[in-house]
């Protein structure tokens, strides 16, 4: 089985095949033997044999190290997955599923679509259409969980659309601002 997996802004080609009780896994041509135990619907225990590089000398050595990774996998709000490797969360997109919202912000081009990250109430709108904005400039203040939260621009640009109105309630994922 082959998958396209995007991690940290880079797409990797991952191929899996069963070898006995384990899997032979290649990531962009590098191959590992992985013993995967299913703990529950969201949790995997992986035992991954080194070498991590294509080191034929070490591969030939029977005493390769077997690294234990505890991994949990859950969908995130943006349509991707959050994979916790130990306690470290890693954002992952599988195949063509696009991460909504933040994926557009992370790159350097295209419009920024600022969406409400949680349901709440718009308490202040700080910019309007046509306003130039700088990276990290506050745009809209949304109140949720007893706190006022500033939503900021990811990078410089000009506000082209403003959908937030002061005093209105918004759902998670609602489009508030577009910046070109």
């Amino acid at each position: 089985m082959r998958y396209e997996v995007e991690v940290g802004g880079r797409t990797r080609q991952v191929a899996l095949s069963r070898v006995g009780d384990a899997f032979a896994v290649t990531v962009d041509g590098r191959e590992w033997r992985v013993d995967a135990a299913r703990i529950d619907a969201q949790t995997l225990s992986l035992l991954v044999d080194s070498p991590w590089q294509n080191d034929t000398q070490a591969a030939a050595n029977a005493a390769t190290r077997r690294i234990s990774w505890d991994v949990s996998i859950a969908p995130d709000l943006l349509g991707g997955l959050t994979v916790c490797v130990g306690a470290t969360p890693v954002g992952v997109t599988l195949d063509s599923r696009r991460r909504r919202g933040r994926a557009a912000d992370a790159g350097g081009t295209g419009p920024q679509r600022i969406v409400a990250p949680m349901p709440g109430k718009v308490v202040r709108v700080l910019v309007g259409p046509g306003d130039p904005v700088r990276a990290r400039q506050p745009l809209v203040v949304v109140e949720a969980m007893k706190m006022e939260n500033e939503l900021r621009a990811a990078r410089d640009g000009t506000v082209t659309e403003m959908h937030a109105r002061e005093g209105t309630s918004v759902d998670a994922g609602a489009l508030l601002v577009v910046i070109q």
Partner: protein
Amino acid sequence: MESPNYSITQFGEVQYSHFVKKILIANRGEIAVRIIRACREMGVSPVAVYSDCDRSALHVRYADEAYAIGASAPRESYLCIDRIIAAARRSGADGVHPGYGFLAENHEFASAVRDAGLIFIGPTPDAIQTMGSKTAARSAARRAGVPVVPGTESALGADVPDAEIAAIAASVGYPLLVKAVAGGGGKGMRTVTAPADLAGAVRAARSEAGAAFGDSAVYVERQLVRPRHVEVQLLGDMHGTVLPFVERECSIQRRHQKVVEETPSRAVSPALRGAMTSAAAAVARAVGYTNAGTIEFLLEEDGRFHFLEMNTRLQVEHPITEMVTGVDLVRWQIRLARGERLDLDPAALVTPRGHAIECRIYAEDPDNNFLPSPGRIQHLRSPAGPGIRDDSGTAAGLDVPIFYDPLISKLAAWAEDRPSAVARMRRALSEYVISGIKTTVPFFSWLLGQPEFLEGRFHTTYLDDVLKTRKGRPFLEPSPDAEDVAAIAAALQAALSPGTLAQRAGAGGPPRRWRTQARAEGLR
């Protein structure tokens, strides 16, 4: 001091347990669970109340009885005095524990509980009212001979003209803070560095305080240079005994909210501890304080300390004091409410055994400006093992609602000294797996590696200052190995359970499964 609403002298020691046999907990989340645990250990029956969105919450499931008190918004449930009293009456509870937040520092609630013939597990309504007003609390501290932060003596009501405030401000000196008299949690508070900004700051503080607390009175206080926030836990009985505990260091704050607490403080010598704990007890005695409370001080670099305010309730960070003294503060709150005598060894309470640290785990996205991250917890694995205490109010499968404080758990670590406690906390953070929502766990993993934290060199604005310099970089950057493992895991998960994954990664998640189920049942 007011006498309790029953006589205790006619009873022997064993008969104290005749009082407060069933406690209604007027709170939710981790603190409700904490109080339920104390009740269970004392053979007291715990009663929960809950709002609409908390029907499945842990505190409801752990309690003996549970009563609905209204809609999810706090104003329609956890802040409704009448409904809480009605639930207490219906359950036959004879005591009410307010926890912290919500009605815990509302003297009208304490009075209403008392008027209903129930025992309020906390101080008297009078003590709550006096110490709840920042200006009244400051005069109480002055009367007890305890220094306060230089500032105005009395509240500046809405009718005080700007010119008069400007004159007062000039005598206090800049930089200064404009603070709401009824304030708390950083609301209704403004920093002013120059006279030109004063009038605007007073207006902003007044409007915020008016909206949040229904009282627009403010006062002016000098801003100290790089102070630490150090506080002293107290217990007081109804027989005039007030005992202070070893200090808690709470200088690690984000936007005036504590995020890490530890005890003892690296900045407090035994001599300074003696002075601070005596001062704290003196303030409490001056107002006839009973039950649990905390006196907050600002500590300057030269060792001078100033009374800041008193919290007339159990404090969020009480577990670390319990860990270094071995005293169960909630159990003592209940015993003191019954009228028992505080017979703890005073010297032992100010002699910490080892070191304890607490991290407040919030449902916030630290990599996205600490925005709230409510939602369903898909998977939860809590740390455990030696020296670790996780006071959690949630579980896998539960929602973190949008209506309340985003605190989901308090992770505390104890060890024989500070470096070992830090190492233990870092170990525990590495075990903490929470998926489905974002939490501040990665932020704490970062913070506990910072040299300033490790060396104990910090003050109340340290964290805000250092966060500004990071410009939003992620707190936990996965290693290349971890990225490879994440890619492998996502592919394996898809291969091992394609149906589940496709369903969950698409829009909807669990609700879609319910819909599918409902449709299937409808077709039968």
